[in-house]
């Protein structure tokens, strides 16, 4: 028997990484600058458009924790988003609470819903898991349609508070600032997960669940953690919705556009990294907002479809994948 050795090759240096505290600080700084910049513009439309785009940043980032990091494609993003919106309606009506506590309750409801979905779909993978999440959306919508307390199929009007929290001049400005903070927090959470032990385990189970188990990864527990965090964050994305338009009804809250965008945005940006959903959401939501103003909101889903087809064919790993390939 010969003891063959492999010729030595120079060891490639590990890529440099920013630490968690530094990234959180940077996210907070970007959020502060964004709030000040939007306040500088001071237009109600700018607030609305930014809130629209940022809610997709939160939604896409949240979806990516389960869909991108763990590889479990969730077609029921609209269910979690609407669960957040209707939590605001229900809690606001029952307890008269303001937006911030409602967001907290939405996270709780979304988390429990995510955990429940995870437990019910333990043995499902691939298309079967996706179909199960789609079913969740249908079931939840049916419940809301038949729940008169939150308006049923007629929908519910939500009156914005008269008093605008200091130092904001309008409620739209306040809502937009809350959304900026939520988006920054969502991105920082996603990045922290990605670079953590949890992220490593999720990446392992995404690539090969049996091999991950053999390497000591508790795949079931990690999947449940991912469904819970993802569900909570998607619900948080939806919590401000009723106050954004002062009205919410089941067909729009459970709309196809939320489910499609939540998947398309990370796919277009790149699912392997926290930056992918951020880039995809800003790009697609801006395009849709521009189309709504210049053409019609009816063109939105068509735009998403066309962009998605182009990216699936030309850049299957998204924009981030394109950059990595060029390096």
């Amino acid at each position, binding site marked *: 028997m010969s*003891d063959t050795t492999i010729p030595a090759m*120079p060891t490639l240096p590990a890529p440099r990484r920013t630490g968690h505290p530094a990234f959180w600080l940077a996210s907070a700084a970007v959020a502060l600058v964004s709030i000040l910049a939007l306040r500088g513009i001071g237009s109600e439309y700018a607030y609305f458009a930014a809130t629209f785009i940022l809610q997709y940043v939160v939604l896409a980032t949240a979806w990516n924790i389960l869909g991108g990091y763990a590889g479990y494609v969730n077609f029921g993003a609209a269910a979690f988003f609407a669960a957040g919106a209707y939590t605001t309606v229900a809690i606001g009506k029952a307890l008269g609470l303001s937006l911030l506590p409602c967001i907290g309750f939405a996270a709780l409801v979304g988390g429990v819903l995510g955990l429940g979905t995870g437990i019910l779909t333990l043995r499902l993978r691939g298309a079967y898991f996706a179909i199960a999440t789609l079913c969740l959306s249908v079931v939840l919508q049916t419940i809301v349609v038949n729940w008169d307390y939150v308006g049923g199929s007629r929908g519910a009007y939500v009156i914005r508070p008269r008093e605008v929290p200091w130092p904001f001049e309008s409620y739209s400005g306040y809502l937009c600032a809350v959304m900026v903070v939520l988006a920054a927090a969502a991105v920082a959470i996603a990045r922290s997960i990605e670079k953590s032990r949890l992220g490593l385990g999720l990446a392992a189970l995404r690539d090969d669940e049996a091999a991950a188990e053999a390497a*000591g990864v508790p*795949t079931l527990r990690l999947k449940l953690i991912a469904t819970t965090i993802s569900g909570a964050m998607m619900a948080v994305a939806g919590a401000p919705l009723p106050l954004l338009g002062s009205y919410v009804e089941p067909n729009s809250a459970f709309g196809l556009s939320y489910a499609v965008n939540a998947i398309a945005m990370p796919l277009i940006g790149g699912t392997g990294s926290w930056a992918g959903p951020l880039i995809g959401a800003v790009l697609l939501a801006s395009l849709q907002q521009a189309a709504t103003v210049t053409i019609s909101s009816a063109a939105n889903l068509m735009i998403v479809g066309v962009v998605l087809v182009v990216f699936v064919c030309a850049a299957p790993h998204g924009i981030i994948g394109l950059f990595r390939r060029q390096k």
Partner: protein
Amino acid sequence: MSPDIVLRAEGVGKRFGGFTALSGVELEVRAGERLGLIGPNGSGKSTFTNCLAGAFPSHDGGFTFKGEKLAGLKSHERARRGLARTFQLPRPFRGLTVLENIRVPLAYGGRDDATAERAMECLESVELAAKAHRMPKELTQVELRRLELARATALKPELLIADEAMAGLSHAEVDQILALLFRLNAGGTTIIMIEHVMRAVTEFSQRLAVLVAGRKVADGDPREVLSMPEVEEAYLGR
């Protein structure tokens, strides 16, 4: 159980519908031993591995590892107790770099320091340190086999099941993997080698067990076992 017995299989049986893949398999493995487990295709070797590693539940009997019954323990719980395996076809985490592949068992196995330095040491032990930041798709077949072994050994296992770790490799590459397995064994790891490459099995194994149609038909000194009529018949036919 005798203190030097690290693994005991007692009456292990497994069925897939009406097909009996394993039936009443008894096996004892001593600490530090190099055991070869052979048998023709479909004899139940991989099913035995999967039952032992916790990928499938066995229908009858069970395993005792280091004096502890393994029934009801999931794969990752068995891995954390020091029972590692490799797969017939290398199954790297394709979205992770070579180094990150090793960080997974270090981070989750709970049996070693989960540091980048320790991961590099694991890679150095299989001569893959130079490719630490490459992706698995950039590795050759033998390098993938080494990565598979490094991932298993990062668990610091007391028992390693090497499931056809040499399938499809050249003569020289088989020697590389054999050298690695000998080194691991010299470090105290008990190894069950499941293999079709008979040269490797005979060179490596201190003892040989033979499965045929889900039953153990022989167990003993490799030369004696290979010359037994029932073993010859299983491989060559009547």
